[in-house]
């Protein structure tokens, strides 16, 4: 089966390392994909705040484009790695299904642009694809460099599992943990898995956002995690890039590696760190390398 890859804006800029590592992992696992041609922004959270109908048509255009590009294929599976894109696409499908009037308006508008929207396409998150399509067993078989001794705190973020996704539990998701258990790591039991990281508030109202990120990092450290893995470009950015700001504000040490789950999985698959965009991280995960080679963690 072939997937249609919808990167979204942030995977082309701050989340570039997410794109690199995701595609590297897909290649390593022989997952076929094709990028959606001339995709547009999903609208994220901001568009919905100004004009709802336009937000829905933005997302619907992407779905319609995907259906057009894959009209020869049996199934249209859109892989949306960014949590906001993933959630918005799902939300659009659900909304249009529930509101036939709006569906008619949006369908008619798309028709004028030569696009045909049907509810055929399936919106998939990469975790969903890896766990349910490839399978944990297959991934276990492909592991080259087991993550032995590494304690992973998997952090899903809000919109990966809430509120429309169905591939995992909304309160205590476990799919990412399954992946890392398969890769030989120890997973940390914690309650922060789906707690908000502050999202775009880090750019707008930092007084509110930094404590949110701090709580997550603090909890991860308290549970002796070596690494926090994320599945969302905004989460990764907030949790990694603001660590110095957080430390200054709370007079504490939250230094911990925050990397994309695809990067850690890629390391376990034995892929070249450069291909996984590790060089784009603010701090190189020396700690992880050391543990993987059998050493002791540098900081706990």
């Amino acid at each position: 089966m072939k997937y249609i890859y919808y990167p979204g804006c942030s995977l082309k800029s701050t989340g570039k390392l997410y794109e690199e590592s995701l595609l590297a992992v897909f290649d390593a696992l022989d997952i076929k994909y094709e990028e959606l041609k001339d995709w547009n922004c999903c609208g994220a959270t901001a568009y919905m705040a100004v004009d709802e109908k336009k937000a829905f048509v933005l997302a619907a255009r992407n779905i319609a484009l995907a259906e057009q590009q894959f009209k020869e294929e049996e199934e249209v599976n859109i892989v949306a790695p960014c949590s906001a894109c993933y959630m918005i696409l799902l939300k659009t499908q659900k909304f249009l299904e529930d509101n036939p009037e709006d569906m008619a308006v949006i369908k008619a508008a798309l028709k004028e642009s030569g696009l045909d929207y049907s509810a055929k396409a399936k919106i998939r998150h990469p975790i969903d694809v890896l766990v349910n399509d490839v399978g944990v067993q297959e991934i276990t078989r492909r592991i080259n460099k087991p993550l032995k001794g590494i304690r992973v705190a998997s952090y899903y973020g809000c919109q990966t599992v809430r509120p429309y996704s169905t591939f995992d539990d909304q309160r205590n998701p476990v799919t990412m943990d399954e992946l890392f258990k398969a890769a030989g790591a120890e997973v940390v039991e914690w309650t922060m898995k789906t707690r908000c990281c502050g999202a775009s508030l880090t750019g707008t109202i930092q007084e509110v956002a930094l404590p949110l990120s701090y709580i997550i990092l603090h909890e991860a450290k308290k549970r002796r995690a070596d690494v926090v893995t994320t599945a969302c470009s905004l989460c990764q950015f907030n949790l990694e890039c603001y660590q110095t700001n957080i430390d200054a504000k709370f007079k504490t040490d939250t230094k911990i590696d925050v990397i994309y789950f695809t990067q850690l999985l890629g390391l376990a698959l034995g892929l070249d760190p450069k291909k996984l965009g590790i060089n784009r991280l603010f701090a190189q995960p020396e700690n992880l390398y050391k543990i993987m080679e059998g050493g002791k963690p540098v900081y706990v």
Partner: protein
Amino acid sequence: MDKTVFAESFALDNAAKDIVEIRRRIKYEGELDKSFRDKIAKSAHGEKLYGCIQCGTCSAACPVSHYMDYTPRKIIQMVREGFKEEVLTSSTVWLCASCYACTVECPKGIKITDVMYALKRESILGNYYPKKSPASILANNFFNQVLNNGRNSEGPLLIKMYLKTNPFMLFKNMALGFKLWMRGRISLKTEKIKDRKALKKLLQSVEDKSNYKVKVNSSSLKEASAV
């Protein structure tokens, strides 16, 4: 409702006003906007809003409720009662980070996040939104950027927002920006899709076909997004 009516104080002479500001802390029923409730319920596609039992689960689930001037539970009740101005000028609407925790937990199935979106829209439309608050400016700038280019470019978006709201923040975040730029994670280039004309036409056509009109080019929006 007029702002002066809203801020009405007891009749005090000027001398007394200098000593202490006395404001009426309650609102009379006649001053409430009774149609507000239906408007928001319709805009949020949430007639379930009427069935709120005020249990407070939303406020407990909300990770930022302790910064809000009214918690989500209070906001819902205020919407139902018709406290239009208080709700639309509150910090609550712009602090909501859309994490959907409340929506998932609500025992009555109220889509509280969507109610917040409806309030954000209403706040922008009615020109109630805080003009210097980065959250509302970001939403507006983001809207226009995607409208014109089809994609969002994080670099220019943030620079514009900081210039408009707090240029000092731009300076403060310069080091962070530089670090990102060194790693190829941010650029000043504006990302664009190829078929911008068709996208604009598409968005316009939705507006034309819809029953209600959203004025994107209202003066308030223009003012907010122009740098």
